[in-house]
């Protein structure tokens, strides 16, 4: 594929708001996870809650969108000059030629979960409950398009934990096909009860902090996060490049990856083909690395099948938690920070490396100039997406 310029990008997770705070936390090897409850959920575990989401006040013109997910989206949009960059793109290309493609898994569902606690005597939802701008899966893209005053094509991709990786593909294809000249991509997922209790019901939630690639890993820690990237047809000053994207399906099981990572292998290979690169051209791999026993085992086999076992790699979910539908975008932005700063972040929380896993898994930060990285995102329903990103 034709490389696509990434002209601005930002992310907000439990590590901090914006790129500088994220980079500082990565350099320090600090986790954003904390052992605490979300609301009154009586679940023992660690969560990656973003500071200050509750205190976010949306501008009056965006009030109808008010919910935790869109507050988190707004907090992220305010960082790193992102809205100013979009305003420039809107002026350059025209609002109708800039698309908005975002990933989320649960959108503003928390709003509905809480509304069900406060049903009126006749069973109806509390007054003022608004479905379309909060609960509906599309609400975050509708919010972003409204906030950024964009009028191009838009939709949400909701393929569980690959959602916000896949949107890079939607945008790149629409740009290549000539329908748009620029796009805002990324994703937002915020903490809610469905995912906390849901992963708990599947026994995939760790009571300990998540430990990707550890022999004693017991599952994931859920985080929340938001990321946005501006892709443009041309740029004099790109901050990085989208070089390739590969997408596939396992066709195997709804909530367990294919044991040999067959679909993941296909996604990584397709991403390399799209980028016109060989496995040896990839300097660092940001793994999906959820810290469930089955994901890390299958991903280890899949990455080894494509790259061998020497390419440096790590999962950053020990730092951010698993941000679910936001993870693909969050980790793409971490990949861009890695490229810009020559920093391969070490995977946190490993006590005893799993001897069954063979990849060159980094446990501490390594610094080296990086030219190209690959980021993996896999999800329920057997969905797989791999991105190849290049240095500016």
């Amino acid at each position: 594929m034709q490389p696509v310029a990434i002209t601005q990008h930002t992310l907000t997770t439990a590590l901090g708001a914006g790129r500088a705070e994220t980079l500082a936390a990565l350099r320090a090897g600090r986790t954003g996870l904390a052992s605490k409850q979300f609301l009154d959920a009586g679940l023992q575990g660690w969560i990656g809650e973003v500071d200050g989401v509750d205190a976010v006040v949306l501008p009056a013109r965006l009030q109808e969108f008010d919910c935790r997910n869109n507050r988190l989206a707004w907090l992220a949009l305010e960082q790193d000059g992102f809205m100013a960059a979009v305003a420039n793109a809107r002026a350059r290309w025209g609002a109708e030629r800039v698309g908005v493609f975002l990933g989320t898994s649960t959108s503003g569902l928390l709003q509905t979960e809480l509304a069900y606690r406060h049903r009126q005597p006749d069973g109806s939802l509390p007054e003022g409950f608004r479905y379309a701008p909060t609960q509906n899966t599309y609400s975050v893209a509708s919010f972003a398009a409204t906030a950024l005053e964009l009028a191009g094509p838009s939709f949400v991709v909701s393929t569980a934990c690959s959602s916000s990786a896949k949107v890079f593909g939607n945008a790149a294809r629409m740009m290549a096909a000539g329908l748009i000249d620029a796009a805002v991509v990324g994703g937002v997922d915020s903490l809610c009860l469905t995912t906390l209790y849901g992963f708990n019901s599947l026994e995939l939630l760790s009571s300990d902090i998540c430990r990707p690639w550890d022999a004693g890993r017991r599952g994931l820690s859920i985080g929340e996060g938001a990321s946005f990237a501006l892709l443009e047809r041309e740029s004099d000053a790109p901050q990085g490049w989208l070089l390739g994207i590969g997408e596939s399906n396992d066709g195997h099981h709804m909530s367990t990856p294919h044991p040999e990572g067959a679909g993941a292998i296909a996604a990584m290979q397709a991403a390399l083909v799209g980028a016109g690169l060989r496995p040896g051209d990839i300097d660092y791999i940001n793994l999906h690395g959820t810290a469930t026993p089955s994901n890390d085992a299958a991903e280890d086999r899949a990455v080894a099948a494509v790259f061998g076992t020497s390419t440096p790699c790590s999962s950053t979910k020990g730092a951010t938690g698993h941000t679910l539908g936001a993870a693909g975008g969050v980790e793409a932005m971490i990949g861009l920070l890695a490229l810009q700063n020559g920093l391969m972040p070490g995977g946190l929380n490993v006590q005893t490396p799993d001897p069954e896993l063979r990849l060159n898994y980094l446990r501490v930060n390594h610094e080296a100039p990086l030219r190209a990285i690959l980021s993996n995102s896999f999800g329920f329903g057997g969905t797989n997406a791999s991105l190849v990103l290049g240095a500016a």
Partner: protein
Amino acid sequence: MTLAPMFIQGIGLLGPGLPSWPDSQATLRGATPHQFVLTVLPAPPRLPPAERRRAGAVIRLAMAVAEEAIAHAGVDPQTLATVFSSSGGEGSNCHSLCETLASPNPLISPTRFTNSVHNAASGYWHIAVGSRHTSTSLCAYDGSFGAGLIEAATLMHMNAEPLLLVAYDLPYPEPLNSVRPLPDNLGVAMVLTPAPTAQSIAELRVEPLPARLAAPVDTCGDASLDALRTGMPAGAALPLLQGLARGLDGAPREMVIEYLPHLKLRARLAALGV
């Protein structure tokens, strides 16, 4: 038009008073008035028994129209990339989860949680047909069919590979029904190919068009059918299906299809070779 043409090779349809593609032709042509009769969702025969037991209404609806479309097209479903699009997935499952989560001891069912992901229908379909092809699951609220159609057209333009488009919407029970009223289940599926085949039905071209430049969105004529078009996101496909049901002997049929408030889709249906 910017995007390459697509060729419709198979159609699936299931909704109130629209029991299948062949059995809906007279209604879509306007020969018989539309009657609102609640849909009956069949069990998905292709799923392995374990998955069939877990398959809720969203799986049954999406798979019913997908099955009809591939049977009509006479294609091997393993060869197809897929685009699934829905406004809200399975409303009754969402309601049940929210009810449980509002209770003092919220222990939710792992199957309900797994089925709550927006890509549940895609996941079950790819398991059922054993396909590792790329698949996406989209949402654009009332524009969800339009989102699926423009994504399908873009994928076709870029990859020139056959694909299956499935748009489906299901109602919420109360109390969500009051804030998002959807009258019943409605699913539409199409098998689309990049080049005409012996089984092709028609050529379809699509492009986005700013609402300020577009003619009004095409309506269905029949008031009951038009209420489905406006009342169900997947109903946005009905003018397209009406165009096919009425036949394409003359000039190509141009129409405007609902997508977003500020952006519509211009669609052009043509007979093969025209």
